[in-house]
């Protein structure tokens, strides 16, 4: 077990390292000059050269990479050009907002999508199930920026129930959370239905029914118990993805999270800030993935105890 954890941890760190290295190269290959963004369109060539020298951008790329690696191991990724503050600190300050939004979204998704999927699986081919089915297809198909704007128009402008932007009050959490959750609920509930339907047809369920097990127990203990692993994995993977910043939704709702930060960092070619954002979100995503992997043995005795059939 310890070996397993160490192995997964090693793989995770390697993933993070490769990710930040790739990003380091890609942002330097992309068009645009940080010095121009920083000094403004009216700056002279001398001023630009000075800015480049100050940021260390006049050095060869390999040397820049070497400096970056040293920074990486000390945990200090340099000073953000636009914030004039340590890049890691800027990202760390935004992180709780993204974490809050991601957690709220995934909880809402789980709370709605699991019962919804179960409900659909128990009423196949009824009109109501068909209606919900169409709704989930619609939910899957709506782009989140559009959903976000519609919700803003509906519940912040026309009926001003919630604030339109920012996170000044808890009410501000509602619209961005719902926007993200609509798509996730559509995806997860369909998956829950698929898994449940497969398990309802499984022989062990029929046999359990034959010994008088109640319908609710058949549904939750037997069918859901056997659907838990794929559903849990899907929820975990989506949560990890949200930690990278739900970029569009954060921008639409001016959410002070990592997603809107990375948009700004990219616009200004703020290299240290981009690298810090990628490093932190990749670390978090790897950590979440590790937790999911470690949860498998708890959910599935076949993983916990190994395939040891004595047949």
């Amino acid at each position: 077990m310890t070996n397993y954890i160490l192995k997964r941890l090693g793989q995770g760190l390697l993933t993070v390292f490769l990710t930040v290295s790739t990003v380091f190269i890609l942002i330097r290959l992309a068009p645009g000059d940080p010095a121009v963004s920083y000094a403004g369109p009216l700056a002279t060539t001398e001023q630009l050269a000075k800015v480049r020298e100050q940021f260390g951008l006049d050095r060869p790329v390999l040397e820049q990479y070497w400096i970056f690696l040293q920074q990486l191991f000390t945990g200090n990724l340099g000073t953000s050009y636009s914030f004039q503050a340590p890049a890691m600190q800027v990202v760390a300050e935004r992180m709780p907002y993204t974490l809050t939004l991601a957690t709220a979204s995934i909880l809402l998704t789980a709370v709605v999508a699991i019962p919804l999927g179960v409900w659909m699986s128990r009423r196949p081919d009824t009109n109501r199930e068909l209606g919900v089915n169409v709704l989930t297809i619609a939910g899957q198909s709506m782009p989140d920026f559009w959903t976000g704007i519609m919700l803003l128009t509906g519940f912040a402008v026309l009926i001003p129930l919630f604030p339109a932007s920012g996170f000044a009050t808890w009410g501000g959490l509602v619209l961005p959370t719902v926007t993200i959750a609509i798509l996730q609920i559509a995806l997860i509930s369909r998956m829950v239905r698929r898994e449940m339907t497969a398990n309802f047809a499984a022989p062990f369920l029929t046999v359990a029914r034959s010994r008088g097990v109640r319908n609710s127990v058949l549904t939750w203990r037997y069918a859901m118990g056997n659907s838990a692993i794929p559903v849990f994995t899907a929820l975990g993977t989506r949560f990890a993805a949200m930690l990278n910043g739900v970029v569009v939704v954060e921008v639409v709702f001016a959410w002070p999270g990592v997603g809107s930060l990375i948009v700004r960092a990219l616009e200004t070619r703020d290299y240290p800030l981009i690298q810090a954002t990628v490093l932190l979100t990749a670390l978090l995503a790897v950590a979440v993935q590790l937790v999911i992997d470690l949860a498998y043995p708890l959910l599935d005795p076949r993983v916990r105890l190994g395939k040891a059939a004595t047949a």
Partner: protein
Amino acid sequence: MNAHDAAGQTNTAHAHTGHQEQALLEIRNFQVELITDAGIVRAVDSVSFSIHRGETVTIIGESGSGKSTTAMGILRLLPEDLAVISGSVLIDGADVIAEPKAIDKVRGKTLALIPQDPMTALSPVHSIGSQLSEAIRIAGAASKEKDAVRARAIRLLEQVHIPTPDKQLKKYPHQLSGGMLQRVLIAIALASEPQLLVADEPTSALDVTVQGGILDLLLELQEQRGIGILMITHDLGVARLISDRIHVMKDGSFVESGEVQQIVEHPATQYTRSLLAAVPVLGPWDETPAVPAGDTASSEDPGVRKNDDGDSTADGDGTAGGDATAVGRPAVGRPAVDTTTTAPGAAPLTRTGVRHD
């Protein structure tokens, strides 16, 4: 030759044992129609039979003959939107067709199912102990206390001859072999002390070496408790071994019904004869018995094969004047149940079939 004759014989059989009791299972004009893409298919067509205490009634037929559909239909385990059932099915006096809710009162209480494939019949993410305890609680055990339920679970596993039952409770289905799982499933079925067992090909997914042990166990439990058994099988060896009466099923209806000996010795239809002829003949078996022949039955050991030429021959033609039950299914104190279900009994049976051609 039809089911009414068989029922009549049953009644007389029970009359001389002293009490005319209600049948455990009484089926009249039972019909199952399956809704398929190609239209409605009548999978079971007007089938009638009954089972009393301590009796084993076998429905035998080839795949697709409707025998399993009959069993599942009786238990109301067919998907309701795909299968329409009609007729009357009285389980311990309650008609589960006319009164669908009645099935909830018999499932896991008077009635239990032993499934076809033990490897897929238990939930893979729940332990043996938790699934067995659940059955004990549903059966309405006297005490629902954890310790009492556990003690009962261990006792049940002991009854089906599972070694170190307290250790097995913690195990998960993937950790046990098919034969052991079938024993666990029988223990689960016995949790409610049922009066009627429906065994849907209980041995067809198992090794030949394990099959005999499972059948032995069923017979042993039947002797101890007088359980009625509805056995579904395609295996004439199994049918001959444990049945009182056999119904031969083809295309959804019974083509022949009667006492075991009569069906085996005087098959009335070509279909039955072909079923008899289909029993494989394993030549070398008779010459090199894996276990020395002997009459001392050891029903505890699931793996023991008994090969007894004399016994097999007697099954075929040696007991013309004897009681039918004693032939097909040795009664209490039976000397040796031929635990290999297909092989040793096969040769004489085939000969019988051929002789009557």
